[in-house]
């Protein structure tokens, strides 16, 4: 192999084979897929994202959400375990409610970029808009995931939220979270012993009267603090900014693997 031409032609032919097979052929096979409609009266599926949800896709993309969350459901043949009776069973993704069926290429025809993901540090999100359709829950979870699940290692996305003084009445969008999550958004806040003593001196009796605890005893003082931390701040509120609203709109619009498709039998 002392001739450049032999190496060049060999490199060309070997790589062309995979280019044709793995890139151009799928491009030709999958490039023209259309939405599915059972009959004329049926709504087409899937539909393109619009408006706020489309903007949210960009937020999801720019912040690398897909590096911890997949958007693909594996078929009944995948994911096997032994149940309590010692029987082997399969189909973990569907059993975990990630979708009613496996996802197929048609689920993604309007996705751009198509963020299938390769990692499940967090759960799959293909159908999160169906699995958990509550916008307030997603907001509180994004602000600080520990407010929803103590074990969570997901980052706090406090930069999608603004803490502001309440002017007039509280905003409809304000997150209903206790002050421990809102005083220092993204973290879990607790007053120092000194601050707590000062607070107790000022409004302790009124507070204690509300819940019937005795701030004089050490136990009562602690219980009162725990209670107080779960109550919302009086003068401040935390509201989503444009990115936060968009991201939650996108999450709620993720409804893959819920509409039956003829090609997704298993």
């Amino acid at each position, binding site marked *: *192999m*002392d*001739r*450049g031409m032999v*190496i060049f032609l*060999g*490199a*060309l032919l*070997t*790589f062309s*084979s*995979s280019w044709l097979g*793995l*890139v151009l052929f*799928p*491009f030709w096979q*999958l*490039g023209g897929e259309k939405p599915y409609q059972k009959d004329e009266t049926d709504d087409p599926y899937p539909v393109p994202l619009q408006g706020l949800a489309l903007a949210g896709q960009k937020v999801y993309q*720019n912040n*690398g*959400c*897909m*590096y*911890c969350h*997949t958007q*693909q459901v*594996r078929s009944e043949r995948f*994911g*096997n*375990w032994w*149940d309590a009776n010692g029987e082997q069973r399969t189909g*973990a993704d569907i059993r975990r409610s990630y979708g009613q069926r496996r*996802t197929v*290429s048609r*689920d*993604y*025809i*309007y*996705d*751009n*970029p*198509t963020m*299938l993901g*390769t*990692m*499940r*540090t*967090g*759960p799959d999100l293909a159908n999160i808009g169906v699995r958990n359709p509550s916008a307030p829950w997603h907001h509180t979870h994004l602000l600080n995931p520990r407010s929803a699940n103590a*074990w*969570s*290692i*997901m*980052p*706090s*996305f*406090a*930069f999608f939220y603004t803490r502001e003084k309440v002017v007039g009445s509280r905003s409809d969008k304000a997150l209903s979270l206790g002050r421990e999550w809102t005083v220092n*958004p*993204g973290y879990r806040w607790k007053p120092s012993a000194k601050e707590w003593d000062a607070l107790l001196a000022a409004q302790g009796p009124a507070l204690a009267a509300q819940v019937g605890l005795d701030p004089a005893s050490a136990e009562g003082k602690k219980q009162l603090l725990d209670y107080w931390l779960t109550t919302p701040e009086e003068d401040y509120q935390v509201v989503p900014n444009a990115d936060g609203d968009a991201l939650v709109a996108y999450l709620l619009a993720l409804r893959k693997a819920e509409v039956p498709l003829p090609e997704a039998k298993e």
Partner: protein
Amino acid sequence: MPAPLTSEMLEANRARSAAERAAIDASCRGPVLAFAVSAVFWLLMGSVLALIASIKLHSPYFLTGSAELTFGRVRMAHLQAVGIGWASLATVAAALWQMCRLSRAELIYPKILYLACALWNVGTLLAVFGIIFGDGQSVEWLDAPRYAPPFFIAALGIVVAWVVAVFRRRREPHVYVTQWYILGAVFWFPWMYLVTVFMIFWAPATGVVQPIVNWWFGHNTLGLWFTPVAVGTAYYLIPKIIGRPIHSYYLSIIGFWALALFYSWAGMHHLIGGPIPGWLASASTVGSMMMLIPVLAVAINHHMTMRGHFHRLRYSPALRFTVFGAIAYTAVSVQGSFEALKDFSEVAHFTHYTVAHAHLGAYGFVTMIYFGLFYYMIPRLTGREWASPLLIRVHFWCAAVGITVYFVALSIGGWWQGRMMNNPDVPFGKIVTYLLPYLFTRSVAGVLLTVGHLAFAVSFIMNLAGWGKRRSGGPTFFVEPGG
């Protein structure tokens, strides 16, 4: 070498060869050092980003509140810094220098290559900071914002032209196996990069065609850009350092062509179980299993070449790094072939097991071989020996222990993560909690790796600053052949 040469003729031959090598090294000096220095800079940047990302996975309040340093962005920036920065720039340095050496040809118009190096660095800078400031693309391996690819394409164009130009000006009629690998790499990488950037960003393909093209690229970046140049480097360094020819020419031919054919077909195993046509995943499973042929061919060839010379690992830093890398190549490739099987992927996919595998490949294999190359090449370019064996020792042990701990911890944790995810009766929170000690261990490993990189960078800077003793010219080895 013909037998009847007299000792004076031999001596004259040696002197002539040494002078020729010195002239070639002198022609490469500036550009290759520029690529090498940039590579090490991005290695340090990548290490810092890696540490931040790693710590965040077990301590989510670490640096919370900053959009710029949120996990997803840092994760993307890390891959750009080490993949497009460190590993690719080191690949270019390796390709340029070895192509000149093996072609016995000087680098012509070396100054244009400074431009290529500058473009590449600007591209990487835009990629890393573009991602940090919110323009990441969430396309694995191609997260760089849309304004970065033109810089890489221009830089790549120059590098490829120069490598081919050097090859065409070769004075050495025999084309060595390393040159095949380098020619393959500089031909394949621009092809796949252009195709992928076109089909994902410039004229986005529909739906799942994007991840298909994405993984064709992602896997081939390792398989047909880093791997050929790194394997070629091992083919160059091992015989050079121990002073004996490669064991089998025919095995090296099998290894090269089987790699060219099968590696390019392996990429779809990243999408096993995914929403792609079944035949695509099956084709890649076949390609991945067939990879056992080139991998074992290279492993046998390197092992047989090294046989009887393993004691030299005690003396030669370059050899020690290179042999570590070559062994990791065999290990990671055999592991990768089996990971492509459905039953294996079913557990390992979507878990840290895959992360461990990727790092054994990109670090244990590619990076370690490039460290070996740098320890061999840099003194020949600067004319200075390494000043401190202690720093090299620190570097080696931090890197070797670091990557081993990293690999073992995430492989065990990742495997059980996959088994638990496959059992829907195990709540997700339990899996997250289970992984914490493994993720913490990974951060410890990351600290070790970073300390090693710092030792390496200090060594490198000292060498550039002229702190080492002068090389006395001629072909020197860390251990003289036969000595």
